Each structure stands twice: as structure tokens, then as C-alpha cells.
């Protein structure tokens, strides 16, 4: 959870509100360099995959970490983006950018449609409704829309190259994903540091109090939901663009656990946490599955450990250590000496 837990009452501490421009540029630079360093270590294709997943994890984090709504059906929006992108490429035109734009808009539109129903609910109801909608979407592409989506087998979608941008080149895809990831990160960073972002975090802490202050929380929740679903849609279009292929697996209900795990292990409620968690999850699912056959069991066990012992996630712990060293020596709490 967040640092506010120990304080109990009082507004959420407004951290890092006046972020200087240079600092933000530095942060983006660090993330970009981080992914560039990953490239020689693992193949470039995989890093592209990682980054697309990170975009998805960021959108999930906005919903879960910042607004406190655990969605067990977030893949619906990713799948919508992927399918709209693929169908446009397949049937109408081959301009990738236009298709990406349409995919994002479609996912956002779905968010606008479902948002009013979804955001009324909290906690378990929200998760279960998300799950139910995801199941409906999965079923729709699998069966009633079979003649256009080709059901279980999926279909290929090849985008034509635009100018010097050749989408079948791995480097182009890498750069495109990197730029979009940094863009999403930048936008979310601005958004979450703005008064709007503070409001969203306050909704997580105590919605009634925010309502007492005179805010229409319903509207803010809806807007957040639409933003999160649009970004998930962006991740979906990139997935389709990267694989040049769309099948119902992109919105399989059971895959949702991946992004939940990523967000938790990285540290929910923090954009860095989402990125670190996304990379960590992809590392685990890509490499551990080779060595450990029973990989679902490992995932389950580590989720239990996270829930009981490691709630702050990787980034939360890094922050704690950083906080410890930033303090003057005299007031460092003795209990944390080992940190």
C-alpha cells in the first residue's frame, strides 16, 4: 500500500508536487537508457515486448495503484485496441498510425461506455464486473463475431511501411515502443502530479471525504477509467503491430493475473513501480518458464509472499532505503539499521 497507512487520518501526503522540468527530463532519460541497456542483455525483440507490457502495466497502475480499483478484466481494453487495429489493417487500410489512433479511440470509447456502470462499484464488485465484461468481450470475438475475427485462430495484420518507418524491422518497433512508453510515462507523470492526480489518490484513501469537499468523484473516476482504458488500448495496438497477428489470447480472462502480479511486485501506486514490475514479470514469465516447469505454482507462491510480507513491492523498498539515507544521521530510526 502507500505510506499513508501508518498515519491513519489526514490527507494523503502530497509528495513530489513541484517537480522541476529538468528532473522530469532526467527521469525519462533514465528509463530510456535503462531499456537501451537491456537490449544487449536480452534480444531486442523481447525488450520491445517488455516495453509494451510496461505501457499496459502503467495503465493498470493508474487504475489500481492510484485510484484503488482492482480490475480483473483490464485485458478487455488491450484486446479491444488490438482487434480494432487488426481489423482496420486487414479490411480497410494499411496505415499503421491511423489504425493505432483508431484502436486507442475505440478502447477509450469502450471505457466511456462501460465506465458509468463500472465506477459505481468498489472493491470486489468492481473486480468481478470487470471480469464479467472481459469474459463477454472474449466470447464476442471468439464466437459471434467469428466471421470477421476468425475465432480462435486469429488473423494476421501487416502494416505497410510509412516513409522510412518499416514496421517489420525490429529496430523500428523498438524505437516506436520506447518513444510511446516514454510519452505515456511523461503524460501519466504530469497527470498524477497535477491536482487531478492528487484528487484521484484521495479517492483511493477516502472517497466520502472527497465528496464532502464538493468534488464530483463519480466524474473523476469515470475520467480516470477512460484514460486507463485508452492507454491499455494503446498497448493492445502495439502488441498487434509487434506480432503482426491478433488472436483471442490477447483478452483471455485468465491472463489478467499477470498485470496484477506485475503491479504488486513493482510496488502499486507508483509509476516507477509499474515499470520495474512490468520488466520483472516479463523476465520471470519469459525465462523462469524455461527452467521451472511448474511456473504457475511459482507465480501463486510469490503472490502469497507479496501479499503477506512484501506489500510495498520493489520500488517501495528502494524508496524506503533512499529515505533512510536521505535523513540526517541523528534521526535515523534504529530499527532500520540493516536497511
Amino acid at each position, binding site marked *: 500500500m502507500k505510506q499513508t497507512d501508518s498515519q491513519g487520518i489526514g490527507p494523503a501526503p502530497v509528495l513530489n508536487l513541484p517537480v522541476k522540468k529538468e528532473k522530469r527530463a532526467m527521469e525519462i532519460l533514465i528509463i530510456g537508457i535503462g531499456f537501451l541497456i537491456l537490449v544487449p542483455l536480452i534480444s531486442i525483440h523481447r525488450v520491445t515486448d517488455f516495453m509494451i507490457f510496461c505501457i499496459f502495466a502503467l495503465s493498470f497502475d493508474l487504475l489500481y495503484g492510484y485510484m484503488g480499483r482492482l480490475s480483473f478484466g483490464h485485458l478487455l481494453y488491450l484486446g479491444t485496441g488490438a482487434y480494432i487495429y487488426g481489423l482496420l489493417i486487414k479490411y480497410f487500410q494499411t496505415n499503421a498510425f491511423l489504425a493505432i489512433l483508431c484502436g486507442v479511440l475505440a478502447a477509450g470509447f469502450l471505457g466511456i461506455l462501460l465506465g458509468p456502470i463500472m465506477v459505481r462499484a*468498489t472493491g470486489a*464488485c468492481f473486480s468481478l464486473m470487470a471480469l*464479467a465484461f472481459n469474459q463477454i468481450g472474449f*466470447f464476442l470475438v471468439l464466437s459471434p463475431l467469428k466471421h470477421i475475427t476468425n475465432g480462435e485462430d486469429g488473423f494476421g495484420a501487416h502494416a505497410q511501411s510509412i516513409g522510412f518507418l518499416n514496421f517489420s524491422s525490429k529496430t523500428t518497433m523498438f524505437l516506436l515502443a520506447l518513444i510511446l512508453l516514454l510519452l505515456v510515462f511523461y503524460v501519466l507523470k504530469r497527470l498524477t502530479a497535477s491536482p487531478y492526480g492528487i484528487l484521484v489518490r484521495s479517492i483511493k484513501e477516502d472517497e466520502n471525504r472527497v465528496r464532502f469537499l464538493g468534488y464530483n468523484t463519480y466524474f473523476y473516476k469515470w475520467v480516470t477509467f477512460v484514460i486507463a482504458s485508452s492507454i491499455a488500448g494503446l498497448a493492445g495496438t502495439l502488441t498487434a503491430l509487434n506480432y503482426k497477428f491478433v488472436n483471442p489470447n490477447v483478452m483471455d480472462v485468465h491472463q489478467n493475473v499477470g498485470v496484477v502480479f506485475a503491479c504488486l511486485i513493482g510496488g502499486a501506486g507508483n509509476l516507477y513501480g509499474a515499470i520495474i514490475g512490468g520488466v520483472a514479470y516479463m523476465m520471470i514469465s519469459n525465462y523462469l518458464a524455461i527452467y521451472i516447469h511448474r511456473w*504457475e505454482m511459482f507465480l501463486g507462491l510469490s*503472490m502469497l509472499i507479496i*501479499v503477506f510480507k512484501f506489500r510495498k513491492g520493489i520500488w517501495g523498498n528502494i524508496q524506503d532505503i533512499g529515505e533512510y539515507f536521505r535523513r540526517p544521521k541523528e534521526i535515523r530510526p534504529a530499527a532500520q539499521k540493516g536497511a
Partner: protein
Amino acid sequence: MLYTIFYGFSIGAILYFVSIGLSLTFGTMRVVNFAHTLTYSIGVYVLITFIPWLQGNFIPAAVIAILAVVPISYLIERFIIRRLYGESLDYTFIATFAITLIGVDTIKLIWGVNPLPFSTPMSTYLDFWGMTFPVYRILIFAIAIVLFLGLELFFRKTIVGKIVVAALDDKDGVRCLGVRVDKYFSLMFIIGSALAALGGVLYAPISAVQPYMGLSILLLAFAVVIVGGMGNLRGTFISAFALGMVMALTARYWSQGAETMVFIVMAIVLCFRPLDA
């Protein structure tokens, strides 16, 4: 058409078995138990293991299957769920989902990934006004009715049932009276899991047996509990049969859409019902 209604009743009965435990755990402990239908699948697999041992005797094998679930559910309750009381719903959700992952993987480890064949233990049919009904499905329906009446009696007449009903309403109030609520919750959890296993045992002969079978019925059970109202026992009964009927009627005209129609009904209900959980 009469057949369709009849099938609706038997599906509704199965849904009732599975979702009653879910409703109880949610109502008393405020825990959304994703691991609930894990016991459902374990029950089925134990049943399949024991049937050849008992020379094809269905009923003793079913009893063994239901009893086998009791210690497992106790362990889950004691070491995972009990530590999550009063926590935010998200964590209970994630933790119980993690249990499901572990459980499904264990099932795969022991019994393999492939679906197992299993056929109806009773293939007799009953002639009735010129129509034939499979006895097995009638039996399922009868058991559901008996169970409903039994649970009603249990919650109204016995002291344990009364404590649980009171705790559904106000947990702290009951605790203030000096009742160890946790003990009763534990009991409720085990009963709920055993009922889920009963549902699984009864449903297995008319459905496919595979490691992920629990997950697909779990979603349906959640829909039943949400439509019926979480922790509302009679609401669960009515909504289980209503949704079973929805499934049967949809399946008659459009067989793939049966499960999805349940979720559509659930979404519609949620649009008009005040949300409290």
C-alpha cells in the same frame, strides 16, 4: 420446452451448491474467495480416483470426495484466509487467486493436464406423462431442495446457525457477546467448501473434467452471488435457479452464448441495484 425448463432446474441446483459457500464466506468474513471452486475441482478429482477402487460405487466415492475436501479447506482457512480478516478486499482477492493458481497446478501435477472421461453413474430414465427424464438430474434437483430446507432449518433452529446469521449482520456485536466468531467462520468456510465439492461431484458426470473446470464455474458462481446479494442466503437460492434457467433457455436457442448471457444479466442487474460491497 419442458425439457429446457427441467435442465434449467438442474443447472440452477448445481449453481446453488457452488455459490452458497461463496455467499457465506463473503457475508461473514468479507473475503472474496477466489479459491472457493478449487475445492470443487479437488472433489471431482478425488471422486474419479476413488471410483475404480470401490468397483464403480458412486455414492461412497462421493462421500469420500466431500470428506477429503474438509481438511484442505481447513488448511486454507487457517493459514491464508484467517490472516486476511479486515484487510482490504484487494489483498484477499489476490491471495485467494494465488491459492487457486497453486491448487490448479497441483491438480495438473497429480492428475495430468488432459480432460478425464467420466460418465453418468445412473443412466436410468423416468417416464412421466409420455416424456422421459433422466433420473440423475431429478436427483440433483431433489438434493438442492433438501439442502435449501436443511440450511434454512440450520440457520433458524440451531444455535450455531443463529450465531452465523447474527454475525452476517453484525460481526462485532456478536463478538461483544463473548462468542468466538472466528471459530464459527472457520466452520462456515468448511461447510461452504464441502458444498462446493458436492456440487462438483454431482456436476462432473454431466460436464467435462479438467484442471481449469473450477475457474469457469467460479465466474458463474460469482454472478449468482452478486445477483442474489452477497451474504443473502435466500437471494442466492433464487438467483441460482433464475440464472440456471437463463442458461438453459439461452442454450436452447444459442448454445455458445449460455454462459455469456449470465454475465449480461448480471451486468443489467448491477446497473439497477445499489452497490454496497
